[in-house]
């Protein structure tokens, strides 16, 4: 190992006067750092323990149970898993295309003077608190959809099962749209960063072959950046799955499985936000903690996949293969 001139890193040993304090300093830093690992492990253990009653009572059937009845103490997670998955997938689908388009614009097309302020705006979109989106969704987007969009949807697609039933402003559709707006900046910002790392020589080679501007993007830039873009989408998915406040305020909070996007639904996060504070100790609270545990495990898995992708991209680069 190089001892000198390793940028941003210390040599392995120092021997000067007062170096006796070093092991202690190092140990303190180690303890502080290890706290992160302890928190993550404690979370998993603690939540498994707190949901033991529900785990014992329902077992794996909890995942497919369709009834959530605090009065008769029957609990099943399926309606909430369904709501979480459906809202996240709609949001990811819409945000994927729009976000990628915005990333292409920011990295490939936009002139320099517009790039910086626009990037800043997109990042700002990511920083606005979830509850603010919720307020906007309740008072602005919901009524707007009700009077301007839903009648048109029902007129054209009303025959399909996706747009059945009355629309009251709070629905799976409203929640998914606001979720889209919240996921968009993540997808756009990370995809932009990835696209910016594509070497200019790749573009120049395509231009040299007589490619049009779009062909340069679609055949040189995007294939080169695809692993990173996939990573951006998965990180966006992670955000969508766990998003709580805006969804709670907009989805209508009814645990039902319905294909209609105009009806109310509920997600893992939103049912927690609504019921946990008033939950009865015992089976109800235990079942709610199990919902949180499911959410935690899903987000751990999504994170691990995103990380694996990144690692594989790094390896592939070293080996010169895709």
């Amino acid at each position: 190992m190089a001892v000198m001139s390793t940028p941003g890193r210390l040599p392995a040993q120092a021997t000067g006067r007062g170096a006796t304090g070093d092991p202690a300093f190092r140990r303190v830093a180690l303890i502080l750092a290890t706290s992160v690992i302890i928190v993550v492990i404690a979370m998993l253990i603690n939540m498994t323990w707190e949901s033991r009653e529900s785990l014992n009572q329902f077992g794996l059937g909890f995942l497919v149970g369709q009834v959530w009845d605090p009065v008769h103490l029957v609990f099943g997670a399926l309606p909430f898993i369904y709501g979480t998955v459906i809202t996240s997938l709609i949001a990811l689908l819409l945000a994927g295309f729009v976000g990628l388009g915005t990333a292409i614009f920011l990295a490939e097309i936009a002139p320099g003077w517009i790039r910086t302020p626009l990037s800043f705006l997109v990042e700002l979109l990511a920083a606005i608190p979830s509850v603010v989106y919720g307020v906007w969704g309740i008072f602005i987007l919901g009524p707007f959809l009700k009077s301007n969009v839903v009648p048109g949807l029902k007129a054209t697609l009303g025959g399909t099962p996706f747009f059945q039933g009355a629309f009251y402003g709070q629905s799976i559709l409203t929640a998914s749209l606001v979720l889209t707006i919240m996921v968009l900046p993540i997808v756009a910002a990370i995809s932009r960063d990835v696209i910016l790392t594509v070497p200019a020589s790749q573009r120049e080679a395509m231009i040299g072959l007589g490619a049009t501007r779009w062909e340069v993007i679609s055949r040189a830039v995007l294939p080169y950046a695809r692993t990173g873009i996939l990573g951006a989408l998965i990180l966006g998915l992670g955000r969508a799955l766990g998003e709580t406040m805006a969804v709670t305020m907009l989805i209508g909070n009814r645990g039902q499985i319905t294909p209609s996007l105009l009806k109310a639904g509920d997600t893992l996060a939103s049912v927690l936000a609504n019921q946990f504070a008033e939950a009865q100790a015992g089976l109800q609270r235990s079942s709610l903690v199990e919902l949180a545990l499911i959410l935690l495990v899903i987000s751990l898995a999504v994170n691990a996949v995103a990380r694996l992708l990144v690692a594989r991209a790094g390896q592939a680069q070293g080996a010169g293969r895709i």
Partner: protein
Amino acid sequence: MAIQAQPLTEGKPIRDLRRGPANFQTRRVRSNVMLGLVYVAVAATLIPLLAVLTWVFVQGLPALNVDFFTKLPGPADDPHQGVANSIVGTVQLLGIASLISVPLGVGAGIYIAEFGGSRYNTLLRFATDVLSGVPSITIGVFVYALVVLPMRSFSMLAGGIALALVMLPILIRTTEEMLRLVPGAVREAALALGAPMWKTIMRYALPAALPGIVTGGLLAMARAAGETAPLLFTALGNNQWNTGITQPVDALTLKVFFYAGQPYEIWRRESWGGAVVLTLMILITSILARLATRRRAGR
């Protein structure tokens, strides 16, 4: 999380352009259509953003007056009420959260940047990533079980701990990245003059990285101040002034959430007012952070 682009294969030929429509005219039209769609995507990103910002300011700014910042919440028919206790509560919660997360986060960042074997550092970074990806509502559930149940009371302390867990991964990341930007020569110079390692880090490396760490800390606080979900069953909310660290406390985000669901005009107005205060806070912090980073980058 650093995501890198992948190189094209060596030896694998770039796809033959002739596989597309051979006619250049057709290809050019297609190119323009696709670029047009890119502009549509940009519009689809910008319009919601501008719509959110516009409505928050249009609806929220008129709700801001002296009462909003100085009075306690009142019944729905009282026109002279405010959310002063919520604003103070948010500040109190941020104070507790910072007291916990800054030492932990900066210490962990120092360890990852300056010490640590590569394998343990990978584990630490993974745990940091995991923690920053954990849905904030599950942090609330965790802290409920950890603090609220044993204390038998919702409390400011529980809310502060929950927000500390939100801030922690951001602080670790920022500290690590900023310390890595400090040239190794700074450390080597200090060590060569006989300074021990802890002094080298605390007196020379850390101060050099401090502006960046402070910026990151501000962003972490802004992020925490905008969080609602971890506070729902930790800090709980309160319509009075908070009386102690073991008592429930209000936060601006909680008021915005609860008032938005109420049918009374005055509470809805307070909700918009809270939304605009939160948005302004994010806006100002982001602009300050951007200015600070730009100045550093330009130097």
